[in-house]
């Protein structure tokens, strides 16, 4: 399945200027998301790993639109991460930023994207997935994390299992955890996030996750209900947002009316 393709990027890109300066270890390109490139590097000292999110100019975009979007998104992401952090939601710390140069330096969150953990867990299995208690528990942690985020007035805008890290419990090596599902769910990549407390926005956020989940982990769709159950318990307004989700689903399906 294509969705399990390796994240390693073979293509070579020129580094952003900031990363051309000396560092203890050379920066490594981790992903080339649509949002930009994510490098693993160090911040201040060799002992502090960090993630540098670089939004290179997109030459296919009109330069004015490009600058507008880049600046806006760097600042917006930083503001939102900072708000999440202050409101007690575990997200990557903001270390530094330069919106004109298009980069944001963030804490390096240990662990693997939840997508990887789920796929490892599923393997080739087609049966007993709906009874996998550990998997369902992970689903509930996802639901709670999303609920907490919504409760503090943040809409993610790009919820997928690639945009959540499973941060293994302290003392557990990264490699140990890949087959396991324990750890804290850390929502990352808030590059498309916005402030919002409307049930409609929350519902669309959930709908995006639901669809991404279904297309990424078709065989695990049967446990997605756990995400919504945990979400429902996580804050007062959650039930209303879930009601709205039903409407959004209907509307989504209506969209293919015309050919």
């Amino acid at each position, binding site marked *: 399945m294509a969705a399990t393709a390796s994240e390693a990027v073979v293509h070579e890109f020129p580094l952003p200027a900031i990363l051309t300066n000396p560092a203890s270890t050379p920066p490594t390109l981790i992903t080339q998301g*649509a949002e930009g490139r994510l490098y693993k590097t160090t911040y201040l000292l060799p002992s502090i790993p960090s993630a540098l999110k670089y939004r290179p100019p997109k030459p296919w975009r009109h330069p004015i639109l490009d600058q507008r979007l880049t600046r806006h998104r760097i600042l917006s992401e930083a503001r939102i991460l900072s708000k999440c952090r202050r409101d007690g939601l575990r997200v990557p710390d903001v270390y530094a930023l330069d919106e004109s140069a298009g980069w944001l330096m963030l804490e390096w969150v240990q662990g693997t994207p939840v997508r990887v953990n789920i796929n490892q867990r599923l393997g080739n299995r087609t049966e007993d997935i709906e009874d996998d208690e550990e998997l369902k528990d992970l689903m509930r942690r996802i639901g709670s994390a999303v609920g907490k985020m919504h409760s503090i007035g943040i809409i993610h805008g790009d919820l997928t299992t690639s945009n959540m890290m499973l941060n293994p419990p302290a003392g557990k090596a990264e490699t140990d955890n890949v087959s396991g599902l324990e750890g804290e769910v850390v929502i990352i990549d808030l590059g498309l996030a916005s402030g919002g407390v409307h049930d409609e926005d929350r519902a669309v956020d959930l709908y995006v996750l639901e669809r991404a989940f279904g297309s990424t982990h078709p065989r695990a769709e049967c446990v997605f209900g756990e995400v919504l159950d945990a979400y429902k318990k996580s804050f007062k307004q959650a039930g209303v947002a879930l009601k709205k989700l039903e409407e959004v689903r209907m509307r989504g399906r209506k969209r293919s009316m015309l050919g």
Partner: protein
Amino acid sequence: MAAASVASPVPHLPTSTSTSITPASNTSTSTSTSSATSDMAAATSKSSWIALGCEGSANKLGIGLIRHTTTSTTILSNLRHTFISPPGTGFLPKDTALHHRTEFVALARRAIAEAGISPADVDCICFTQGPGMGAPLTSVAIGARTLALLWDKPLVGVNHCVGHIEMGRDVTGADNPVVLYVSGGNSQVIAYAEQRYRIFGETLDIAVGNCLDRFARVLNISNDPAPGYNIEQLAKKGTKLLDLPYVVKGMDCSFSGILASAEALAAQLLQLGPEGAGFTTEDLCFSLQETIFAMLVEITERAMAHVGSSEVLIVGGVGCNERLQDMIASMAKERGGSVFAMDERFCIDNGIMIAHAGLLAYRTGYRTSLEESVCTQRFRTDDVYVEWRD
């Protein structure tokens, strides 16, 4: 209907495009009816198939014939007749359906003639079962049913979007691309996984082509050959980028806000003129294209990043736009991949894509009975079980 008198064709071979295709497996789920059994017996020994495809989900009526062998695909004929409404108007279902009914027989005759085959050589009649506009879909389905009964051939109902995708894969040779499907009725980013074309992103409200068409109406831009084409030509002369809403949510996007803003600016332009408004029709077309295409490129790129693919295939009428193709190509190149774009023969709705996708399904044993041949306006791309792919 006069289809009964379709003449035996003049024996000449049309110029045909031959492209390679992944051999489809011959495994099939045989149905319990006896007629199906004999059908299947024939299918297993066969090495060449011909399908006739009928498309009419929107304002284009398309009929085409295709031949598959185990290793190749040959287009025998590919004809289209488009219903064009006057500037400032859209095509209404009733008028479009009338157009399709009126043109169906003549077009079917020409398609058969050009293909240089006889109806007896045809293995199945494929038709668009949805999604699309109800009345035009139904008109063409009636035509297809008539041919099937007349010639005693099985029917194969085809999902319009899957038709675009399969045709695109075949024509371009793209193996497992992320598909950007952009037309008057649809805007989807699709990738294949586990026997289905999964929709990763789509418009949350109106389709991108619908947005362009409706914008064209406000400015009385001609619908001939297509409003989007004329916007594209005007946009080439635009220079000033106007601020329009840019709405992307994950892999989804929204065009209704941008349409409202563009319409408001258009109204301002009509009222004040270019001097007074400070921008021209060309600038407005340019800004609209730059903004909405940037959104489409962004959601496509996000889907590519998500599934780890570096190939993109653009299908659907809006996919003809060269600016969009260039933008996607530039993005794909930066990701170390490439774009596969279709020329207008295939990007714009056509019968061949229906014949092609239908024949792929037919070869796996898929049939649509007369009772099941009802059209549906709502037919999700991911509703189709794709048995012919690994």
